[in-house]
């Protein structure tokens, strides 16, 4: 994704952020992480909590999986990527849960069940795998993870806002509930296609 060689370092990172948040949004363009996107978007507060928790884990996970991929697996053991990344992510989620429980009981209460659920979020596995595929370096991986998380959080909050408003709409009965949510997600995805071509 990052064919921006020759650009100053800072611009590279800004481009990564813009690219992951808008152009190659993990949910809208790559269609990853749909389960929390559909599942935790009924209420705005829950969406914000889920987004923040995912952002935290995703950034940590992309850094950690870069280290695992670079220094433990290398080119010979590339076939262990998925397996080892899952193990690393599960460990990070556990660690995050313990850390938040200790450091901020209020945040722990707010995030509640969403914290362990992050383990099963395919976006969290997808971004480290994409990192490995695109051969990002460590800082680029971190920015890619943070950008992806930011994009996920933004889309989740937007979608939750739309769904909350849709509660009061007069939706024809065959489309009520999940079906109209699916249609809305499709329309949002179409809207995000407008960004394509902005950054390669």
């Amino acid at each position: 994704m990052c064919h921006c060689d020759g650009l100053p370092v800072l611009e590279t990172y800004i481009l990564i952020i813009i690219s992951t948040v808008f152009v190659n949004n993990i949910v809208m363009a790559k269609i990853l992480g749909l389960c929390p996107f559909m599942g935790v978007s009924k209420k705005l507060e829950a969406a914000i909590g889920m987004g923040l928790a995912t952002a935290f884990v995703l950034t940590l996970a992309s850094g950690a999986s870069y280290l695992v991929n670079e220094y433990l697996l290398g080119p010979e053991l590339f076939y262990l990527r998925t397996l080892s990344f899952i193990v690393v992510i599960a460990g990070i989620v556990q660690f995050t849960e313990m850390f938040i429980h200790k450091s901020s009981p209020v945040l722990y209460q707010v995030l509640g069940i969403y914290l362990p659920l992050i383990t099963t979020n395919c976006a969290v596995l997808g971004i480290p795998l994409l990192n490995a595929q695109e051969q990002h370096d460590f800082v680029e991986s971190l920015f890619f993870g943070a950008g992806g998380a930011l994009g996920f959080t933004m889309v989740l909050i937007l979608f939750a806002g739309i769904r909350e408003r849709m509660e009061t709409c007069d939706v024809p009965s065959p489309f009520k509930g999940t079906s109209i949510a699916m249609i809305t997600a499709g329309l949002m995805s179409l809207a995000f296609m407008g960004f394509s071509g902005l950054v390669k």
Partner: protein
Amino acid sequence: MLAAILVMSGIAVAIGLALGWSAIRFKVEGNPLAEKIDAILPQTQCGQCGFLGCRPYAEAIAKGEADINLCPPGGEEGVKKLADLLGVEPKPLDETHGAPKPKSVAFIDEQTCIGCTLCIQACPVDAISGAAKQMHTIIAAECTGCELCLPPCPVDCITMVPIAEDLPHWKWKHPVVMLKQVSGDWNA
């Protein structure tokens, strides 16, 4: 192949150690015993034990500051369960804190109620609905029968109605099995 096994076990061991360390390092000071005791207490929040509610009483028992036989709504059965949990001898209920009564809910005589809201303020579980100068009523499903609304009522319009044993409230009785005298040779 060997390298793959080594790497995966290495990752697993490293993460296991890190999680084990952080489980000790970030241990949250909770009191699981108080949780268990609180689960046994009847949650009437009546305060007859002398504590503000069931949770403070549970914490006091867990710390060893209170005796286990101060809860009349829990009755002898509750004392027995607490004794089982804590591994102490069950004691008879301390009668100074009140006697166990049949489970009942409060009932407001709506003809007499003047809408003073005093009982609403006394109710620990928000089981009374009403507003100033409006007739009040008890939400029977929420009422724990703690009787805290009786004293504040200026017109004595609240009575305790025992819960009738109808279908929704029927419970299995404790089994009473007649033991037969066994005689004869055990080895036969």
